[in-house]
């Protein structure tokens, strides 16, 4: 009797609790573990459903065009369903891809949600590919790759393909970026740097800036003399983006300041082939000490550590921020387009990269000259794709068909660009403005930017594969202050501006492509996750500390508690395979 009563009590209480959780769900929060993933999945699903609905609708109207969906774990802008170039591609190549981008969640959350839900888009590009492989979500591509020997041989070398091979011997994804065709036409510094607005350099008479001290000294002097912009907006010396995975803008400058390339999670000491931890290195301490000093002097944006990516981009777009550390691809495409639209580029708000180091006269390796093959991510076809054959063919077409490539990156001939008598592509100012305009982009431009693409010279041997790499285009696209700056330093491209040493990176480069794939299965993976959490909290604290040494000491205690040695040991094991 008593037992029955207790059981009844327990059951009814459990029912009550779950009902409450259900009721409160909308306003409060989904509670127990089992409902939390379910709820988020629902959101993702409804997104997919919407995409699927669109797909079904569109395919009815176009007949035999293959409709695919794609999810990319990066924020991006969706293009309109009736996008003109997407339609041209569909007409000629028979494929239309509905891209959806990351919103709100982090990349790993989005991937985890897809796996928990078990339904996938046709194509996927995620930062967490190994999780998808673990979940049996991806189609092995080996056979398809062998079907297109031309593509296979041109896209990667056999060694590079091998890097993509997973422990089970299959290749599941193809990195679409960073391949150069023919002669390199690299004009942008598509990497990390200390960036500075050209108006500051112009004001100072284009000095040579080599160290952090000189950099901040210049910013301070500029602010002292020019507290506001022409329109009265207050200038801000330096801001730091610190949201989620983008906190590299705060976190990893130490490795570059010490003169090492972007291995991302560790430093590789080539002389004795050992892994070193840059988090605790002298250069990193100096870097944070300098940031701390500037913060306490009031030259670092007080909102640095609480701003979101959107707020950060909005801030940069006002042109009031003089400098920051960031990757080119993380800000330049958006911000430069805005500058062009608002005319701020004519006021010298464009950013140029500086290759700073701890001491003067050191070699810097901010710029990566080789093609960086990040084998940790790329485009993949999922098991939910009904026609992987056609899907893969489109991947190949994107890489191998120059006409398609031109359509994606240059646009429509005589509309988005013109061809001169020598066969060189060029654009008028109006065409350039259009190309940078967001509503025009949504209605007309379709880059399928996570499908394979080339840098360097086009198959016609004359033009660049991408407009920003076309020398004439690159020069014409530059506003006067930027051009003046380039002239003053006697350079023609961004990589020359940063002046990194030219050398070939080791076959292990970049090491971050390995650590990105760590899971909590191993002690090193757990350490890596905990180190990330710890740094997220402590690095901002260290910068804001009233007493730097004390703050750094506390940080180190917390950092050591994460057992970084486990992580470093596993990275060393990986490096040892290249000995």
């Amino acid at each position, binding site marked *: 009797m008593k037992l029955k009563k207790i059981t009844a009590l327990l059951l009814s*209480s459990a029912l009550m*609790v779950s009902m409450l959780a259900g009721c409160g769900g909308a306003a409060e929060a989904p*509670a127990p573990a*089992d409902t939390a993933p379910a709820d988020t999945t629902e959101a993702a699903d409804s997104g997919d459903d919407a995409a699927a609905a669109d797909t079904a609708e569109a395919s009815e109207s176009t007949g035999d065009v293959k409709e695919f969906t794609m999810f990319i774990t990066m924020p991006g802008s969706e293009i309109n369903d009736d996008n003109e170039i997407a339609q041209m591609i569909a007409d000629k190549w028979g494929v239309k891809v509905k891209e959806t981008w990351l919103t709100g969640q982090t990349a790993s959350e989005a991937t985890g949600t897809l796996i928990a839900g078990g339904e996938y888009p046709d194509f996927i590009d995620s930062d967490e590919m190994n999780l998808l492989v673990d979940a049996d979500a991806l189609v092995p591509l080996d056979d398809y790759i062998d079907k297109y020997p031309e593509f296979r041989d041109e896209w990667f070398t056999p060694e590079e393909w091998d890097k993509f091979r997973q422990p089970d011997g299959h290749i599941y994804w193809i990195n679409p970026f960073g391949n150069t065709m023919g002669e390199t036409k690299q004009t942008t510094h598509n990497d990390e740097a200390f960036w500075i607005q050209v108006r500051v350099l112009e004001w100072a008479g284009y000095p040579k800036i080599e160290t952090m001290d000189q950099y901040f000294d210049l910013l301070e002097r500029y602010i002292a003399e020019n507290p506001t912009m022409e329109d009265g907006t207050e200038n801000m010396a330096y801001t730091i983006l610190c949201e989620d995975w983008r906190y590299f803008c705060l976190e990893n400058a130490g490795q570059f300041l010490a003169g090492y390339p972007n291995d991302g999670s560790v430093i590789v000491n080539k002389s004795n082939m050992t892994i070193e931890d840059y988090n605790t290195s002298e250069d990193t301490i100096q870097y944070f000490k300098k940031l701390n000093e500037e913060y306490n002097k009031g030259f670092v944006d*007080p909102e640095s550590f609480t701003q979101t990516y959107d707020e950060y981009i909005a801030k940069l777009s006002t042109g009031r921020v003089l400098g920051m550390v960031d990757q080119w691809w993380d800000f330049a495409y958006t911000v430069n387009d805005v500058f062009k639209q608002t005319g701020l580029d004519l006021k010298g708000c464009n950013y140029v990269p500086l290759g700073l180091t701890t001491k003067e006269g050191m070699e810097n390796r901010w710029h990566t000259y080789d093609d960086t093959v990040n084998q940790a991510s790329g485009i993949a076809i999922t098991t939910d794709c009904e026609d992987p054959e056609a899907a893969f063919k489109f991947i190949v077409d994107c890489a191998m068909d120059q006409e398609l490539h031109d359509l994606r990156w240059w646009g429509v001939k005589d509309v988005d660009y013109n061809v001169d008598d020598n066969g060189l592509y060029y654009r008028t100012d109006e065409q350039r403005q259009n190309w940078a305009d967001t509503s025009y982009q949504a209605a007309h431009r379709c880059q399928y930017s996570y499908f394979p693409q080339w840098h360097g010279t086009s198959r016609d041997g004359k033009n660049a594969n991408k407009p920003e790499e076309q020398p004439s285009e690159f020069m014409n696209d530059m506003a006067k202050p930027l051009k003046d700056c380039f002239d003053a330093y006697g350079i023609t491209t961004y990589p020359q501006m940063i002046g990194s040493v030219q050398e070939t990176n080791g076959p292990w480069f970049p090491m971050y492509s390995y650590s990105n794939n760590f899971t909590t299965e191993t002690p090193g993976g757990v350490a890596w996750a905990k180190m990330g959490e710890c740094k997220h909290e402590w690095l901002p604290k260290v910068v804001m500390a009233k007493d730097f040494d004390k703050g750094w000491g506390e940080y180190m205690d917390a950092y050591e508690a994460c057992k970084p040695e486990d992580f470093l040991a596993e990275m060393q094991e990986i490096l040892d395979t290249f000995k």
Partner: protein
Amino acid sequence: MARVKTEKTRKIPITMKEMKKQSFLMIVSFCMVVYGIIFYYWPLTGWIMAFQNYKPKKGLLGSKFVGLDKFRFLFEDDVFIKVIRNTFAMGVINLVSTTIMAVLFAIILNEVRRTWIKKPIQTISYLPHFLSWIVVTGILHVSLSPTGIVNDVLMRMGFIKQAINFFAHPKYFWWIVAFANCWKETGFNAIIYFAAITGIDPSLYEAASIDGADRLQKIRYITLPGIKPTFLILLLMNVGNVLNAGFEVQYLLGNGLVQSVSQTIDIYVLKWGISQNDYSLGTAAGLFKSVVSILLIVLANGLAKRYSEERLF
């Protein structure tokens, strides 16, 4: 005592005839039972994950059992201990502040005599309930930023010299969350109290007036005792909800600097379960939360049973 006994002996025996007679009720309740099993109890089988090293590829049946390993990891993790503390602290602060605000608001609104003022205020006050958290946190983020309205007002009135970045200091975080909850839910929660007050017999107030009671006395001796049953039932129901201290608010307002006070169990589950793909660990954390919630509600119910008539079960 005797009456109770007779009631017990009058229990209707379960016979085919009786079941036929009550067939409609049987069908209705059967549907509810099926619904409950499918949506409340069946998902609980997923709790097995907490005792496994779950891999999506192998599924629930194929994954390896690891016993209490995941729980051991949880309780050896300093972060999780902090997470429990945060969840409890924010849950209690939220519960206390939203309840007090709702009762106060309902009483004050009840004292407003003119309907044409009362009705619009009531409607406006519960509108924020229908805003999504992303909107509310957006508003908070802007108004509490160093250049936002709050800092602006404080500086103009001379309370502070320098703008405070409210989101950069752990000490403010819990109170910001409590404020957000109050702002959003006060009006909506007050509806139920307001209804309870309306249900109080007006003759009590009339009698009190004749006896010479003033407004405060009427509130003290009639309104408050009148809403006590409602208050207790709601409190009981919410005690089980204390660990649902929130997910969206903390997730959207949090950042690296305040993560040691902002993370709740739900965020922890998301971080380890979904982001790090350790579903087992996430489930273990969620299971722990559910068990504690059940204990809490049983405990609160027991207390209520002992000290007053109100109880849930």
